C-alpha cells in the first residue's frame, strides 16, 4: 500500500488504466481477462494544469481538440489531427505560431489543459451580447427537500444542520425550500405578507406540467405568474433591483438569493413542525418522498436551461405514500431485503425504481442534480433512489441519525468553501474521442448517456453506453468515471508499418464551475499498441493491479445488479484463475512452481478481499447499504476505491513508528493500537493491554507521556483521513474483545480461527469464522492456475 500512497499515480491527467499497453486485437484483448478500462477524474484539480482564456481549436472532421500529440507544420500553419489524420489550417489568430512560440495546448507536458468558455455554448439561440457585463453567470440554485416525518430530536438536528448550511451558501445562490410528510409543501419564500406554502397531495403522481401550472409557473410562464397572487412578492423583489437569471419568470417567488431569504428561512425552520397527520399505531409515518422530489424537480423545471441546480433531499425514513413507495405503511411488513429482491418478493421495488428512473430522466434533461442525505436506523429507499442520484451525479450520504457526525460533518462540507470545498460543479458534459479501432462500451459512474452515436460506439454496452458523450449534471473534484473500451474486430495486422504505434484518447469535459463560469477541460493521453501475440512482457509491465482490481469490483457490482442469477464469486474466481494461467510462470500441473510477476503479485489478494467485501457478500447488508456502497465505489478515485475493497491497516506500538500492518488477524496484539481504514468506517482498535492502561488512566499521569502520545497518534491520523473524505466516515473506537471490535475483525484475513486457535501466540486473537484464509485461497489458486 505504501508505495501507492506516496506518489500521485494519476498525474496531471487524472487517468488510470487497467492496461497501459494495449494488445492489438480484440482476440488478444479478451485473452487479457481484465478489460481495457480507464478510470478518469474529469475535473480533478492539479496545480500544473494551465487555463487558457480562449476557445479551443477543433478538428474539422472529428471535432477533437488540438493537443500536444498533433503534428504541426509551422511553415504551412497546418496541424494534423492524431485521431483522424485530418489536416487542419490554423486560424488567423494562430499566425504567430512557431516551434519556439507555442500555444499552451501544444506544450508536450500539457496533456491536460483547461479552457474558459463564453456563457451558454449549448444555448440554441446564443445571446450575441454574452460579453455584456450584466449577463453575469446564473447563480447556482439549491432546493432543500426536507422530510418532516421524524421525531422532534431528529428534526432538531436536521434543522440546525440546515441553518448552518444556509449560512454557508454563497450570497447570490438561489434557495428554495420544500418540506414533506403526508403531503408536500412548497414554500413561497418570496411572499412577504406571511408564510405561504403550496400543498401537494402525497398520494397523487403529478406531472411536471401540472406542477408548474399549479404553482402558477405554467407554460404561459410569466403571464400566469404575474396574474397570480404571489406575484406580489416576486414583483416587489424584482423592484428591489436584484439581478437574477430568470427575467420575468415566476420561479423567483420560490427561489430567492440566500442573502435575501436567510431570515425567512430561519424563521420558517423555527416554526416548521414534524408532520402533523396522525400515524395510527402499528403503522409507518405517511411519507411521500417520491412526490416531494417530483415537485422539487418540477419547480426547477421552471428555471431557464443551463441553470446549475441541485435538489438536496434530507430523508428520515422510507417512502410510504404515493409514487416511489418502497414499503407499505403496515409496520408488520419489513422493508425489502436482498433476499426479497432475489426471490422477487419485493412488491414495491420495481415500480419505485421505474418512478425514480423517470425522475432521473427529467432531472437529466433539465441538467439538475439530486443529492440524497438519508439518516435513519431502517432503510429509506436508497436502493430505489440510486438511479436518480447516480444518473444526475448527485451526492449521497447514508447515516443512522441526523445527529451523527457522518451526516452532520458531511452535510457541512457540501457548503464549505476554500480548501475543504467539494468543488461542486454543474452541467457537465463528457465527450471522448479515440483512435480508430477503439470502441467505447460505456461508463460506470455518476453520469447519463447522451445517446450520441458514432463509429467509436461499441456493439456491446457496459453501464451508460451506446454513446460518445455523457451528461454529468453534477460533478466535483473527486468525481471519477470508469470507461470501458473494446477493440474493433477487424484484423489490422495485414498492413504492418503503416499503423501508428501509439493510440490516443481524448476526454473533453465541459462544465460550469462553482462560480458559474463555463469551463472545458481537455485531456489527451497516448498509450502504446503492442502485439501481445509476439511479446507479453511489455503488456505485463503495463498492468495496473490496483486499477484493475477496482475495475473488476465495479464491473462485478454492475453485473450483480443487472444480470439475473449472476454468481459473482464464481465469476471473479474464474477470471483470476484465467489471468494467473495466462500471466503466471509455472510448470503445467505443478502448483509449487507457480510464480507471479510483481506487476500481478498484489492482484490475487485484492480479489480475495473483494470476494469477502460488502460489494460481493451483499446478504450481510441491506439493499440500501449495498446501493450506497456501490455508488461510492463507482464515483471515488482508484486509491479510495481500493481501500473500500482492501482496507488499510496501520499499527501503533511503543517501540516503533506507525507502520502498515498485514490485514490479518495476526496483526492484533495486546500492546498495539490498530487503525483500520475501510473507507466507510475508520476503526481505532486498542489491544487489551492498551485498553487496560487507558482505563487505569495512565495516560493522564506525567510519567506516562509516551503512552499518552501513543494513545493520541491513531486518533490524529483518523482525523486526517476524516477531513479529506466525503462522505465523512464513521469513526469507531473500540477495544480488543469489545463488541465494536467486529468492525475490525470482519475485515481481517482469518488466518487464525477457532479451528487452529491452539497454534496462536498469547495476546493475539482468533476470528470465529469458517471463511477460508488468504493462504488457503492462494493454495487453491495455484493449483487451479497450473491445471492443464
Amino acid at each position: 500500500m505504501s508505495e501507492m500512497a506516496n506518489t500521485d499515480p494519476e498525474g496531471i491527467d487524472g487517468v488510470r488504466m487497467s492496461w497501459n499497453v494495449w494488445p492489438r486485437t480484440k482476440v488478444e484483448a479478451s485473452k487479457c481477462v481484465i478489460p481495457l478500462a480507464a478510470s478518469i477524474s474529469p475535473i480533478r484539480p492539479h496545480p500544473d494544469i494551465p487555463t487558457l482564456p480562449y476557445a479551443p481549436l477543433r478538428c474539422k472532421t472529428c471535432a477533437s481538440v488540438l493537443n500536444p500529440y498533433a503534428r504541426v507544420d509551422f511553415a504551412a500553419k497546418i496541424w494534423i489531427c492524431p485521431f483522424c489524420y485530418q489536416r487542419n489550417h490554423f486560424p488567423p489568430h494562430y499566425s504567430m505560431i512557431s516551434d519556439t512560440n507555442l500555444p499552451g495546448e501544444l506544450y508536450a507536458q500539457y496533456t491536460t489543459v483547461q479552457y474558459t468558455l463564453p456563457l451558454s455554448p449549448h444555448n440554441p439561440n446564443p445571446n450575441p451580447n454574452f460579453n455584456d457585463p450584466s449577463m453575469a453567470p446564473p447563480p447556482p440554485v439549491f432546493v432543500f427537500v426536507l422530510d418532516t416525518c421524524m421525531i422532534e430530536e431528529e428534526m432538531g438536528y436536521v434543522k440546525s444542520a440546515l441553518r448552518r448550511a444556509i449560512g454557508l451558501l454563497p450570497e447570490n445562490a438561489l434557495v428554495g425550500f420544500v418540506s414533506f410528510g403526508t403531503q408536500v409543501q412548497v414554500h413561497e419564500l418570496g411572499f412577504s405578507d406571511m408564510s405561504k406554502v403550496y400543498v401537494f397531495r402525497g398520494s397523487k403522481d403529478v406531472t411536471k406540467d401540472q406542477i408548474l401550472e399549479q404553482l402558477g409557473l405554467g407554460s404561459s410562464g410569466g403571464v400566469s405568474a404575474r396574474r397570480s397572487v404571489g406575484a406580489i412578492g416576486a414583483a416587489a423583489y424584482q423592484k428591489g433591483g436584484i439581478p437574477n437569471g430568470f427575467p420575468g419568470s415566476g420561479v423567483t417567488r420560490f427561489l430567492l438569493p440566500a442573502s435575501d431569504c436567510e431570515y425567512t428561512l430561519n424563521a420558517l425552520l423555527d416554526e416548521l413542525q414534524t408532520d402533523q397527520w396522525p400515524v395510527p399505531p402499528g403503522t409507518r409515518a405517511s411519507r411521500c418522498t417520491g412526490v416531494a422530489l417530483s415537485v422539487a424537480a418540477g419547480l426547477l423545471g421552471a428555471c431557464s436551461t443551463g441553470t446549475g441546480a441541485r435538489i438536496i433531499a434530507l430523508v428520515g425514513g422510507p417512502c410510504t405514500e404515493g409514487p416511489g413507495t418502497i414499503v407499505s405503511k403496515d409496520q408488520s411488513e419489513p422493508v425489502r431485503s436482498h433476499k426479497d429482491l432475489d426471490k422477487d418478493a419485493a412488491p414495491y421495488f420495481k415500480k419505485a425504481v421505474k418512478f425514480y428512473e423517470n425522475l432521473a430522466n427529467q432531472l437529466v434533461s433539465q441538467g439538475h442534480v439530486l443529492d440524497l442525505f438519508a439518516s435513519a436506523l431502517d432503510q429509506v429507499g436508497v436502493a430505489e433512489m440510486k438511479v436518480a442520484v447516480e444518473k444526475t451525479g448527485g451526492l449521497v450520504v447514508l447515516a443512522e441519525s441526523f445527529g451523527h457526525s457522518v451526516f452532520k460533518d458531511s452535510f457541512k462540507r457540501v457548503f464549505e468553501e476554500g480548501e475543504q470545498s467539494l468543488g461542486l460543479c454543474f452541467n457537465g458534459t463528457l465527450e471522448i474521442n479515440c483512435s480508430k479501432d477503439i470502441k467505447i462500451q460505456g461508463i460506470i459512474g455518476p453520469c447519463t448517456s447522451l445517446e450520441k452515436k458514432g463509429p467509436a460506439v461499441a456493439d456491446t454496452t457496459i453501464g451508460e453506453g451506446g454513446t460518445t458523450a455523457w451528461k454529468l449534471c453534477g460533478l466535483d473534484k473527486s468525481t471519477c468515471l470508469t470507461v470501458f473500451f473494446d477493440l474493433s474486430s477487424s484484423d489490422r495486422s495485414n498492413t504492418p508499418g503503416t499503423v501508428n504505434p501509439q493510440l490516443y484518447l481524448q476526454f473533453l469535459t465541459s462544465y460550469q464551475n462553482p462560480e458559474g463560469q463555463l469551463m472545458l477541460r481537455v485531456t489527451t493521453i497516448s498509450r502504446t499498441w503492442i502485439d501481445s501475440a509476439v511479446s507479453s512482457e511489455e503488456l505485463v509491465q503495463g498492468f495496473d493491479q490496483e486499477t484493475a482490481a477496482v475495475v473488476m469490483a465495479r464491473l462485478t457490482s454492475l453485473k450483480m445488479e443487472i444480470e439475473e442469477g449472476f454468481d459473482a464469486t464464481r465469476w471473479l474466481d474464474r477470471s483470476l484463475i484465467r489471468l494467473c494461467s495466462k500471466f503466471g510462470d509455472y510448470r503445467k500441473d505443478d502448483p509449487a512452481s507457480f510464480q507471479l510477476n510483481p506487476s500481478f503479485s498484489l492482484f490475487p489478494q485484492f480479489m480475495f478481499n473483494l470476494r469477502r467485501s460488502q460489494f460481493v457478500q451483499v446478504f450481510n447488508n441491506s439493499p440500501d447499504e449495498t446501493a450506497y456502497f456501490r455508488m461510492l465505489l463507482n464515483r471515488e478515485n482508484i486509491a479510495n476505491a481500493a481501500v473500500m475493497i482492501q482496507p488499510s491497516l496501520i499499527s501503533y506500538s511503543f517501540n516503533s513508528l506507525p507502520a502498515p500492518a498485514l490485514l490479518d488477524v495476526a496483526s492484533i496484539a495486546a500492546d498495539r493500537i490498530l487503525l483500520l481504514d475501510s473507507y466507510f468506517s475508520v476503526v481505532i482498535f486498542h489491544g487489551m493491554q492498551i485498553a487496560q492502561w487507558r482505563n487505569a488512566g495512565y495516560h493522564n499521569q506525567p510519567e506516562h507521556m509516551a503512552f499518552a502520545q501513543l494513545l493520541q497518534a491513531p486518533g490524529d491520523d483518523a482525523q486526517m483521513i476524516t477531513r479529506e473524505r466525503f462522505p465523512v466516515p464513521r469513526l469507531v473506537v473500540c477495544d480488543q474483545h469489545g463488541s465494536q471490535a467486529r468492525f475490525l475483525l470482519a475485515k481481517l484475513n482469518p488466518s487464525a480461527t477457532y479451528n487452529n486457535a491452539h497454534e496462536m501466540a498469547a495476546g493475539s486473537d482468533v476470528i470465529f469464522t469458517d471463511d477460508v484464509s488468504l493462504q488457503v485461497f492462494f493454495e487453491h489458486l495455484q493449483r487451479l492456475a497450473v491445471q492443464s
Partner: protein
Amino acid sequence: MFGMPPPLPNQSMTSVSPAVGQIGAPVAGASKIDPNQIPRPIPGSSVILHETRQGNQANPPPPATSDYIVRDTGNCSPRYMRCTINQIPCTDDLLTTSGMQLALMVQPLAIPHPSEETVQVVDFGESGPVRCSRCKGYINPFMKFIDQGRRFICNFCGFTDETPREYHCNLGPDGRRRDADERPELCRGTVEFVASREYMVRDPMPAVYFFLIDVSMNAIQIGATAAACGAINQVIADLPEGPRTMVGIATFDSTIHFYNLKRALQQPLMLVVPDVQDVYTPLQTDVVVQLSECRQHLELLLESIPTMFLENRTAESAFGAATKAAFMAMKGTGGRLLVFQSVLPSIGIGALSAREAEGRTHLSAGEKEAHKLLQSADETLKAMAIEFAEYQVCVDVFITTQTYVDIASIAVIPRTTGGQVYYYYPFSAVSDPAKLYNDLRWNVTRPQGFEAVMRVRCSQGIQVLEYDGNFCKRMPTDVDLPGIDCDKTIMVTLKHDDKLKDGSECAFQCALLYTTVNGQRRIRVTTLSLPCTSILSNLFRSADLDTQFACFLKQAASEIPSRPLLLVKDRMTNLCINILLSYRKFCATVTSSGQLILPEALKLLPLYTLALIKSKGLRTDGRIDERSFWINYLSSISTPLAIPFVHPRMVAIHDLNSKEGDQSLIPPVISLSTEHVNDGGIYLLENGEDCLIYIGNSVDSDILRQLFCISSVDEIPAQFVLQQYDNPLSKKLNDLVNEIRRQRCSYLRLKLCKKGDPSGMLFFSYMIEDKSSSGLSYVEFLVHVHRQIQLKMSS
C-alpha cells in the same frame, strides 16, 4: 263543536259590488267596481293575546303577520307550526272539493314573542322521553291515559301502550292525570326533551364556523373581499364563547388558500391547495382551531387579506373546489361553512358556464326551455351537497357580485344542507357592507341547531305527502338538517290515507332532534291537534290565508324551474279560482249569480295571487340570478314573511312628523297603487329583503335635507346609506326602518328611487294594483276571476 263559534253568514263572506262583472259586459263591469270597496289588507294595530286551546278546543291562530302573544295551553304556538286549514276535512273528497291545500308550515326554532313563556326543557334521564312503542310518537297532551293511568292511547296510531312504571300517575276525576298540569309534556304543545344516549351516534358536535372568501380579481376590485373580511372580523366577537367554538378560514381564486391559525406560530401560515380538480385539505389539524386560541391571528389575517390580494390578477374562481376543500377540513366535526362568492365559479370541480348569455338569446328566440336556466346545471355540486349534508356541514352562500354567478346551480348546496343564499346585487362597497355584516351576524347569532333530524307524525287517516324546504332527504320519512335556525321553515304537505271521524281530533307532531350551540342534544317536540270536520263551510271558515298563501308561493317557486312560466301563472290563477268557485258553488248558493262572493277568511286571496303573478319570480324581464334568488328565498321562507315578500308594505315617510302622538312606529299602510303615490311625497316600500324609498319629483327640499341631507331630487345618491341626522324626522325614519328590520329579522337593502330612472321603474313594478305590462290591475283581475267562476258555474 270545536273552536270557532259560527259567525253570521254575512260576516263570513265578502261580496264585491253587486254590479260586478255581468256576463257580456266586461269592460263596463270593470268600471262599475268601486276600487275603494274591494278587499285590502287592514293590519291590526293592537297586540292580540292568543291561547292555543280554550275549553279543550283548538283556537284558530291569529294572522301570521299580526302582532300576537301566545299562551301555550296544549296546542303549539302557531309560530312553530300552523296548518293551512284549522279544521281537518274528514275525507279526501271534501278537501278536493274545497280546492284548498292541506299543509303544515313548520318553523321548529321560531323566535317567541318576548312576552311569551319560553319552551320548557324536560329531562327524562337515561330512559329518554316517553314514546308510543308502535309509531314512536312522543308523549303529548293528547295522549289519553286510561286504566288508572297504567296505560295510554297514542293519539297518532291509536295503539295502547303500557305506561312506564316510573312515569305512572293516577287519573283525576276529569280523566286527566293528576300531574298533567305540572308536567310540561302533558300540558304544552311545545316542549324540549333532553336527548339520551340512544339519540346520539357520536358526541354532540362543537360549534364550527368556517369562512371561505373569494379573493379573485373581481371580488377584490368591487370591494367584496374587504367587506366580507370586515364583516367576519366584527362577527368574531359575536360567536359563542368557550372551548367548543372552532373557526377556520380559507380564501380562494384559481387555487385555495388555507390558513394555519395555531397560536404557536408567529404569524398565520398560508397553505395553498393548487389542485382544484382533485382537492384535499392541506392539514389534518390546525386548519380549524378553537376560537380562543386564534383570535389574534384571525384578526390580523382578516385585516391583511384585502391588502395581501390587492394586486391579484387571477380572474378565475374555484368555488366548487374551495367549498369541497373547506368541507374536507371540517368533515370530522361538521359545522357551518360560510362562503363569500363574487363571480361565476369558473374553474375546478363544479365549474359553471356563463349560460345566462345563451339563455338570453334563447329567450329572445322564444325558446320554450327558458326555465331550464333556473335549474341547477351541475350534477357535481348536487353530489357534493349530499355529501356535505351527510357529514353535517351546513353551507350559507353570500353572493356579493356585479355579474351573473348562476345562483340556480350554486344554491343547490345551501338548499341541501339547511343553509341559505344571500344576494347582494349589484354589490356596492358603499351601501352593502353594513347589510352583509348584519346578515352574517344574524346568521351566527340567531337561535340555531346543528346536526338535526326532523320528522312530522300525523294521526291515523292523514300522512305526510312531502317535505319542502332547505334540507337533505335520505329517508322518505325524515329530513336531515345539518343546520336549522329560527328563520327556516319547512312546508309539510299532507294527504288522506283514510277517513277521519267527524268530531274527533287529528294531531300533528313535529319532532326535531338537534344539537344546541352549547353542545346539548335536544328533541324539540311540537304538537298541534285540530278538530276534524265533514262540513265544507267549516273548512272555508277556518282557512288560514297566510299559511295557504305561503303554500301557494312555495309551490310556485318549486314549479318555476321545471315548467314554462305561462303554465305556472295559469296554475296559480286556477288555484285561486277553484277555491273561490268551490265556495261560490257550495257555500253561497243563496246569493245572486252576478256577485263575486269571497269567503271572509280568504278574501285577500285574489290580491295576493295577483301579487304573486306580478312578482319577480314569475316575470321574464328580470335577470336569471334574481329569479333564482327569489325562488331560493321562498324555499325556506316563514309564513309571516311570505305575503310581504310578494305583496310589500308601503308607507309614506314625508309626513312622519304629522302623526304626533300615535304610538305605533309604523305609519298606516298604503295600497300598492300609483294613485296613492304623490309627487310631493316620499314612500318607503319593503318586502322583508329590499327596501325602496321613492322620492317624488316635487318633494319639499326641507324634508329632503332633513332625511337625506340633500337639497334636490337630482342629488339622490345611487348608493344609499341610511344615516340619522339631528332632526325628529330623520330620527323617525330611522326608528321606522329599525322597527321593520326587527319585525322582518332582516337588515334590508335600502335603495333610493326617483321617477324617470331605472330605480323608479323598479319601485313602480311593485305597484301591484296597477295595470302594467306584467299583468292586469287588481280590479281587472277580480273581474277576470269572477268571469272564470261564472263560466265554470254555468258549464
